[in-house]
């Protein structure tokens, strides 16, 4: 080993150094800004998580798996995974090995940023020593790996279909500068190291290249200019990085610990949301996934474009994109970075200010819960006194209507949005409520299985609009001998979800409090839901101590296991559509399939479970009109038809009515199918 320059410096490192200092400075400044933007309790939580050994270890592991190995991408498409991980991991290894070399051979230079990068220029080592041979081999190996990745990236630009993608985004001008400089970095490094290999040593890539070049060049005049070029492209890349999609590299390293700390999006633009936006590399995977992309006009409303517009600060488009989304959650499910598209949109919607806020505090819930509690056994038969609820609850009716009006009003008042207000401390409150609810549920679970439970069936407005579903659920509860009451058979309050998806979180919470009163006052210990939209709401946002909240699919599945329900298998073959709210929303995929499998044949659609395609009927969108929704519905039906089943089954009343509108084959709710084939 010998250092070639006593000073350990050459002016060519300057471009690199400038870029490096700039990007580091930018990132440090950014980190402080983001930390400053976080609400106090979130900031504390985040900082504590960084020094808690368990989360700290998890952070390192997750960063390694996601940022370097791109594990999630591998699962999506092997070629895409290889391309990204070869570049990321290869580059990381080259930097690591560079540092290792400096540590081993000239530890006194450790403080020089550029030394590990330009090691081969400054230090002449000989590959004949064992250490040199191994290190040089590894260096060349990883360089080759990166070059393969870059080669694939170039192919991908031209033919994205090879990578399982139909559509990708178009890079902006700066993105392109970043892209081309990134592509140029590694071939230039290869050239630079090859020109230097006869002086500083090399391995299987650089030595033969060096030999070839020397055959016709015969001098070392190219040596310094190539190192200059290498340094310049590195510098350019780092200077443009913060303004391009490549910002995702540092941002994701911040996103992962923040997510592991359990942070939630509280503000549409600041803090956690900002980090998510910056972490999006614009890979475009969410474009093909988004059901709205069934139509060209709506492609630019996918999450990747939301991120892009937020980065550009285009307020008008941000509003439009935020309002249009179905909140189906698919982009989030496929995103390998974990950008929470739906949450960002709800946060954005919640920044809007309205002239009129519905207030539900005045509703008298006592008659509703009294009627329900009177209906449990011992009183006048299973649904006996439920009718009385009708007489007493005129007020509730009014409130329900007001709730609906509030939700639909949201799109109308869109223009009146006040800038970027504070989204919602409410989310925090609700979070706590959710936790309490879960604890209660656990406590009540035992009672539920024991069979002596008092069951409240909450159908929600969606089920009331598809009465066949409500009837089937009641019939099944009857057949299983449950002691139940249909809580909102005639009168009931909205679960609050439409208000919540419209971003009107305070109004939603005031409605939630009222519903909690009704349910707790009814004396029920189990709350069964036939609509996954309500179910998600009840299980995440309600505080119902002592009451178990359960979807009808899980509940009937238990009845089957207890032998309380039995089915006769029919010869009809159904394809099961995973409703977004039940599947991606609540993680329930198996119990509906188990039940359906007992009552009929079952087939799978091409895209199912986490990747199921929204029916297009979702309450989430505030602005999609029927013509556009129809296209989405038909596309979703096509996916279901791919299974060649005779009929379609789902477990969401909204999916049911949406599909029924356009389907060429029967569509039935799980409850209807079960009830029809139930044998006592």
């Amino acid at each position, binding site marked *: 080993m010998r250092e070639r320059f006593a000073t350990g410096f050459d002016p060519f490192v300057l471009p690199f150094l400038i870029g490096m200092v700039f990007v580091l400075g930018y990132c440090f400044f950014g980190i402080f800004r983001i930390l400053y933007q976080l609400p106090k309790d979130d900031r504390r939580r985040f900082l504590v998580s960084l020094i808690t050994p368990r989360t700290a270890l998890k952070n390192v592991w997750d960063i390694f798996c996601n940022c370097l190995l791109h594990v999630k991408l591998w699962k999506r498409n092997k070629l895409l995974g290889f391309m990204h991980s070869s570049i990321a991991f290869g580059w990381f290894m080259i930097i690591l090995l560079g540092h290792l070399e400096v540590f081993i051979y000239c530890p006194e230079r450790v403080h020089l940023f550029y030394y590990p990068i330009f090691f081969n220029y400054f230090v002449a080592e000989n590959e004949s020593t064992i250490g040199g041979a191994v290190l040089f081999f590894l260096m060349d190996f990883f360089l080759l790996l990166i070059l393969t990745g870059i080669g694939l990236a170039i192919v991908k630009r031209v033919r994205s279909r090879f990578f399982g993608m139909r559509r990708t985004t178009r890079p902006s001008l700066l993105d392109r500068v970043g892209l081309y400089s990134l592509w140029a970095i590694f071939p230039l490094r290869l050239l630079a190291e090859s020109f230097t290999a006869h002086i500083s040593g090399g391995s299987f890539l650089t030595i033969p290249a060096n030999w070839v070049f020397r055959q016709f060049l015969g001098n070392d005049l190219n040596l310094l200019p190539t190192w200059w070029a290498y340094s310049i492209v590195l510098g350019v890349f780092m200077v443009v990085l913060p303004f391009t999609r490549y910002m995702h590299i540092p941002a994701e390293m911040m996103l992962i610990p923040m997510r592991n700390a359990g942070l939630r999006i509280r503000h549409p633009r600041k803090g956690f949301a900002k980090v998510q936006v910056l972490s999006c590399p614009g890979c475009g995977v969410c474009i093909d996934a988004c059901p709205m992309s069934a139509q060209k006009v709506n492609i630019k409303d996918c999450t990747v474009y939301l991120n892009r517009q937020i980065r550009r600060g285009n307020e008008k488009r941000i509003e439009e994109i935020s309002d249009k989304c179905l909140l189906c959650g698919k982009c989030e499910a496929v995103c390998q970075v974990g950008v929470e598209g739906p949450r960002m949109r709800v946060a954005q919607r919640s920044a809007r200010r309205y002239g009129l806020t519905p207030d539900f505090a005045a509703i008298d819930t006592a008659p509703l819960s009294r009627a329900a509690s009177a209906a449990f056994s011992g009183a006048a038969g299973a*649904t006996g006194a439920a*009718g009385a609820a*009708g007489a007493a609850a005129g007020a509730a009716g009014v409130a329900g*209507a007001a709730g609906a009006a509030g939700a639909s009003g949201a799109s109308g008042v869109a223009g009146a949005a006040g800038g970027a207000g504070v989204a919602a401390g409410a989310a925090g409150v609700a979070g706590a409520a959710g936790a309490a609810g879960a604890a209660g549920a656990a406590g009540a679970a035992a009672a539920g299985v024991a069979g002596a439970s008092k069951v409240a069936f909450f159908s929600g*407005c969606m089920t009331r609009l598809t*009465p*066949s579903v409500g009837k089937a659920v009641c019939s099944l509860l009857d057949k299983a001998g449950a002691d139940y009451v249909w809580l909102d*058979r*005639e009168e009931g309050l909205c679960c609050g979800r439409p208000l919540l998806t419209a971003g009107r979180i305070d109004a939603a919470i005031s409605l939630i409090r009222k519903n909690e009163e009704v349910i707790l006052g009814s004396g029920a210990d189990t709350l069964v839901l036939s609509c996954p939209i309500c179910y998600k709401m009840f299980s995440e946002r309600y505080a119902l101590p002592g009451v178990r909240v359960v979807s009808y699919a899980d509940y009937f599945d238990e009845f089957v296991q207890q032998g309380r329900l039995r089915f006769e298998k029919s010869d009809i073959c159904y394809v099961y559509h995973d409703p977004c709210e039940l599947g991606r929303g609540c993680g329930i995929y198996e119990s509906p399939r188990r039940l359906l499998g007992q009552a009929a044949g079952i087939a799978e659609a091409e895209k199912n479970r986490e990747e199921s395609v929204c029916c297009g009927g979702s309450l989430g969108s505030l602005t999609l009109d029927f013509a556009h929704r129809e296209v989405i519905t038909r596309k979703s039906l096509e996916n279901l038809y791919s299974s060649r089943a005779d009929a379609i089954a789902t477990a969401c009343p909204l999916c049911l009515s949406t599909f029924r*509108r356009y389907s060429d084959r029967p569509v039935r709710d799980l409850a209807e199918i079960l009830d029809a084939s139930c044998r006592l």
Partner: protein
Amino acid sequence: MENKNVLVIGGGIAGMEAARRLLQLGCEPVIVEQSDHLGGHVAGWHKLFPDMMSAPELVEQMAAGLDGVTVYYRTRVANMNRLGSGYSVMLSNGMSLQCGAVLISTGFRLFDASKKEEYGYGVYDHVVTNSDLEAWFGGAPDDRIPDSPARVAFVHCVGSRDLKAGNPQCSKVCCMTAIKQAIEMKEKFPSAEVWCFYMDLRLFGKKYEDFYIAAQRDHGIHFVRGRVSEVSEDIHGHVVLKAEDTLAGTPVKLNADLLVLMAGMLCNDDTQGLARMVHADVDSDGFMRSRDNIYRINESNRPGIFFAGACTGTKTVPETVAEARAAALDIYNYLNGRD
């Protein structure tokens, strides 16, 4: 006239009236009817507004004029091609015809009320459609209709003027049908309360407004402007309607013993197929497209293909009959080389 044969597709009142007139003009009409009877929808109605004329009697009267007209029942057109100046037609019963002109009078299809699931048709015990009610008036038993209802509710615009149901058109006849049926119910059950929930009342024809005023003044029928949002069933099997009275600005709730849904008129399912057979056009509402909607409603954009009745859009009986006569004359002139 080289070829006096005229194919009439659809033997509703439009097809019947046109065939009768064509016969009088010396043509030889052949009616192809997919069902087993003539008269189409009208054969299933009880009384016709605004004169409360008996619908079966009208159909009978019209059928009497069809002596000498060939009618193929339970038959459809399998295939049709332009041949010379006329059309060569294959029927589903194996017959083939050469005809000089074709009249399309295939009428409409009633909206399937079970598609508006929120109204509970087919799910709740006491929900019927306008068409069910006509059949019941005509004597067909229907156990969904109680013996002595205390309260009857009619809902207008079921599957009409409804983008969600895929039909933005007004069906035009159902406001009047609702009023007519409301009066008939009131006459049958004088002590019953009768309620109509409407979006707008579209009462455009001669005597229609009088009919409406009589319904309010003489029969005490209640009219509420507002769409019904939701229908449920209470434990006694009553239907419970929820709506918003948009004039009063208040929500209303009504318990009723019978709910009648005013199902709308839609284009037939096979309109597209039939149109394609003769290269005629289908309009954006799914009905057949006339050359224009003002002066040439009877004519298609293809030579020798004519329309009459509800196949080009919603029509009342008098409109249908008038169009059928006009079409007969147009066809006669066409066959004689006159424009």
